[in-house]
């Protein structure tokens, strides 16, 4: 992968190795040194990107501090008297079902959306006729701009139509815990289940993943594609040999971005999901996500309750960080060494 940071780290066996750092021109006297004018563009650029980099850290720190500061009541309550916390059994027993719910919904959304998004991206870049491809691009961009409340409304309408499907699922695949019917032998009558919410989520993150991977796939070097084709690769084989390996890091990034959106999506889930206690089955009502819990409760929350909700937000923050780092670590481990 061509990664270019000009700043070199000294090679371990090159003791006297030098690296490019200083700014003064060589002291050769009678030459075109006057050409080496101060390059304001470069200075400004360095400064600007550095400032941007720092600012983003400041913003993140700001958000994190805000979350932490608002969480202190909850932490205090947790230490002094855990029964004050909603649910009465302390913060962790309150939060873990939410964590699980959030992870499940995000995982389903990702599992559904990623192959789909890659398919669409490949279709637009390598399969669709020249004229159709930009149209599909518009469609994707459009999907990205639909407000989550509209997705929510649409999801509610969709939910009603999914009950039959869920019944069918629970009849035939009820032995799989995630499709098991509820205690009374039936599935949700409203369709407002975790599965519906996750499916709508997957549509919401689809544009993000598609857009990013599409751009990356478009940039696959022609020479690589030609190399694969000339070996007698079919389109799919060419994509496997040249396009996907080239796009690997982009695919990971796209998935992470989609994951972020799925973890943090609020409105649509809050509108669609009929929340309840944690259950393994995804076709009965129940489960809840962190973002939706916050959205549904903060309008009426005050004092400790508000602090609790923000602490829950902090937990999401930490989860995201862990998931991200984990995912990237796994990807890094499976890459070709040295490439």
């Amino acid at each position: 992968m061509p990664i270019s940071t000009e700043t070199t780290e000294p090679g371990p066996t090159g003791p006297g190795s030098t690296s490019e750092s200083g700014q003064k021109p060589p002291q050769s006297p009678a030459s075109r040194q006057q050409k080496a004018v101060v390059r304001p563009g470069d200075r400004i650029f360095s400064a600007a990107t550095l400032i941007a980099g720092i600012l983003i850290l400041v913003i993140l720190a700001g958000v994190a501090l805000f979350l932490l500061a608002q969480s202190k009541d909850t932490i205090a309550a947790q230490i002094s008297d855990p029964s004050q916390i909603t649910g009465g059994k302390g913060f962790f027993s309150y939060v873990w079902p939410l964590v699980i719910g959030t992870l499940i919904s995000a995982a389903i959304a990702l599992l559904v959306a990623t192959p789909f998004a890659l398919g669409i991206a490949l279709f637009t870049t390598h399969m669709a006729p020249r004229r159709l491809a930009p149209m599909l691009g518009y469609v994707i961009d459009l999907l990205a701009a639909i407000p989550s409340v509209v997705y929510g409304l649409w999801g509610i309408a969709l939910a009603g139509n999914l009950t039959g499907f869920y019944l069918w699922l629970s009849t035939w695949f009820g032995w799989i815990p995630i499709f098991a019917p509820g205690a009374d032998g039936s599935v949700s009558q409203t369709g407002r289940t975790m599965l519906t919410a996750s499916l709508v989520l997957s549509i919401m993150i689809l544009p993000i993943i598609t857009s990013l991977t599409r751009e990356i796939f478009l940039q696959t070097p022609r020479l690589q594609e030609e190399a694969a084709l000339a070996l007698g690769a079919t389109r799919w084989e060419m994509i496997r040999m040249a396009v996907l390996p080239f796009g690997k890091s982009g695919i990971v990034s796209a998935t992470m971005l989609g994951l972020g959106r799925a973890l943090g999506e609020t409105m649509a889930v809050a509108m669609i999901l009929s929340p309840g206690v944690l259950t393994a089955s995804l076709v009965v009502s129940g489960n809840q996500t962190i973002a939706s819990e916050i959205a549904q409760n903060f309008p009426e929350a005050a004092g400790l309750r508000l602090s609790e909700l923000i602490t829950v937000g902090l937990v999401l923050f930490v989860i995201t960080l862990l998931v991200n780092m984990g995912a990237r670590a796994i990807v890094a481990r499976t890459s070709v060494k040295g490439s």
Partner: protein
Amino acid sequence: MSKQIDIKDLDIFYGDFRAVDGVEMQIKPRSVTAFIGPSGCGKSTVLRTLNRMHEVIPGASVSGEVLMDGTDIYGAGVDPVNVRREVGMVFQRANPFPTMSIKENVLAGVRLNNRRLSKTEADDLTERALRGANLWNEVKDRLNLPGSGLSGGQQQRLCIARAIAVEPEVLLMDEPCSALDPISTLAIEDLINDLKDKYTVVIVTHNMQQAARVSDKTAFFNIAGTGKPGKLIEFSETSTIFSNPDKEETENYISGRFG
């Protein structure tokens, strides 16, 4: 195993631009054919039509026929994938897969053909192909490192190894020795000599001596001027072309009295 190629009235276009005009040629099986001519005259373009790689370029098209053992590869119902499985190619610019290791690069084409290879078969094949391309000694200790960490000439030889590993019936080579030192060049020429016992080889080269050394027949292309299409000027036995060409243009080019 080898194929005969008949090119009939081939015109080649990049969008509106007619790059090559009216090529007629018959390439015999089990022979080496060299394409020579000034830069930009359409050698690579013609070569790329022989395995339908030309049409991969957006807007590019051809008209005319290219018959392989009598079947027009541009005929209706011909899958270019099948054509390319039988016609291997080495590009003018070396293009190893940067994300694959050296060994994977060599085996890439073989893996495509769905052949199951045992570990030893794979190792044998890798060694054979890399030896053929005179690269084995230089890379035998780093077969699992990425192909992008090689020098220019090494990359070029890696691409040759990759192409011969699939044992195609026809092998097209676009300046395969351009980045090679004389020793590697000789090795590749030996390789070509071996290959022609079984396969049909077409090679583009700027090196007259090389053309004279390896080829049975030589095709000389030329271009009348900027914006004009390239044309096949003369196509005969290599000895004829270099000693006693039919056309004056050819003679001028061969003897360097051109332009």
